[in-house]
């Protein structure tokens, strides 16, 4: 056997063994990984949805898209919570494109009357110690119970009612704006959001 062929075969054998082992490991970990990801989603939903629904919002989801929810109008899942079949609340992801550095993704929960049941910052890249106070403090709690009608949707500096932080106005302003746009979308499309049949393959 020529030298180069021998080397190639040896490498191939090493590669094959490695691949076989990896395939095995992937098989073992596939279920736990899916489980953890699902648990993560459930934890987040539990934080923004009100208690008392009797369906599974993860399975009862629809994909909708709008420019107000994220700038690229990508489809995002709407997780619907119902009680006895009647719409109770919905949770979906809004994205603020105008944060201090990069997008801020916020999971918001809205009840059927249009009031917020909770918001959670899912991902962001804001400055530690300044903008990241949106996750380090209980600032998001101020949103609970707020609706388009009963709140002035701006930070205090701009004449609204939400706190900004010393030295950081841009981040809270972006979050407030994005949540407001999400509420507006919900107000206009409430029927569509609750009545569209659930997507078949809810993953």
């Amino acid at each position, binding site marked *: 056997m020529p030298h180069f062929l021998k080397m190639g075969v040896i490498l191939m054998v090493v590669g094959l063994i490695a691949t076989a082992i990896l395939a095995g490991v992937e098989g073992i970990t596939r279920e736990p990984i899916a489980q953890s990801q699902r648990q993560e989603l459930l934890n987040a939903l539990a934080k923004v949805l009100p208690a008392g629904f009797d369906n599974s919002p993860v399975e009862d989801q629809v994909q909708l898209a709008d420019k107000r929810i994220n700038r690229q109008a990508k489809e995002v899942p709407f997780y619907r919570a119902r009680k006895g079949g009647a719409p109770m609340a919905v949770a979906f992801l809004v994205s603020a494109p105008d944060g*201090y*550095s990069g997008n801020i993704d916020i999971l918001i929960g809205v009840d059927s009357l249009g009031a917020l049941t909770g918001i959670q910052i899912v991902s962001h890249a804001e400055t530690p*110690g*300044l903008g990241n106070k949106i996750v380090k403090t209980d600032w998001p709690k101020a949103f609970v119970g707020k609706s388009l009608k009963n709140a002035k949707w701006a930070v205090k500096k701009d004449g609204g009612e939400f706190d900004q932080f*010393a*030295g950081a106005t841009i981040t809270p302003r972006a979050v407030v704006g994005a949540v407001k746009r999400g509420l507006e979308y919900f107000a206009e499309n409430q029927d569509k959001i609750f009545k569209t049949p659930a997507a078949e393959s809810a993953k």
Partner: protein
Amino acid sequence: MSSTTLLTPSSPHVHGGLSIPVIMKTVIWALLPAAAMGVMVFGWSALFVMIITTLACVVTERLFNAVRHRASTLGDQSAALTGLLLAMPLPPNTPWWICVIGGGFAILMGKQLYGGLGYNMFNPALIARVFLLVSFPVQMTSWPAPAPLLSDKALSFAEGLATIISAPFNTPELLDALASATPLGQYRMEVSLGHTVREALGGSYGFDLFSAAGGMIKGSLGETSAILLLAGGIYLLRKRIITWHIPISMLAGTLLPAIIFWYTDPTKYPDPLFHLFTGGLIIGAFFMATDMVTSPVTPVGQIIFGLGCGLLTYLIRTWGGYPEGVSFAIVIMNAAVPLIDQYSRPVIYGKAKTHA
């Protein structure tokens, strides 16, 4: 070596008369009018800030000498100058412990760890300011309104002291109440909201160039009085401590793009005089970029360096993450100095020009 031997020293044989302590002292004198104006405009706390940073620098220098078993280098006056230069761009009521950290950082990290005066790569005062700005953004961007001494808004000596004194690593309570934006910060914020420059700076904010040039605006304790800083700069030019190349090219580097953008859209970009008289452009151009250790040697190199500083300042002010960019711009260009020196070396007499 025997002391009786006659030695012919190597050139240069004629000494210009300038020594390091003389240079440093002259620069301190040139800074003092603007510093005094800072105290007049912002009250006693500005004086305390200057004293604390200067003391912190001097003490750090002496301690480092002692730790390394070296003779004291306080005589060259450079530590005192670093302290004063560090104080100038600080808010007039910076908490005392930030002043101490800044002074210690400037001397230790900015100068002595590189090997002392002459070996440092970055301007010590500026590198310390950049460190403070990224580390304590809230305190470093809380600007009080002017409260001139002898006016009825003025704080007493004790009140001035109280605005900067707190437990270590805590913010004095008085500070929170005073926080607001400088004209540059105001401009950036309002324009990002879709307002025009006129709306951002006129009206309720009451910005006018006359008070900006005189120093009666919100801002750091020693950067605001553009006219006195300009006078100090001209004094340094007259005394031949600095040459015109860096200051003029740095001002041009900021003002040329400012004129171009202002001409294309005056609602979005403020006029060049705004850029000239707010923030730290003038003190940066005359006192900080011209630091002999951290600027290029040849006139051509100095002009490239100055243009780079000015252009970066404009870029950061207009599109960057911070409203003011002078210190970042100069620190970035400091890093480029060895490269600039390499490519701006004059051709030695008698040597043919090499075409690379």
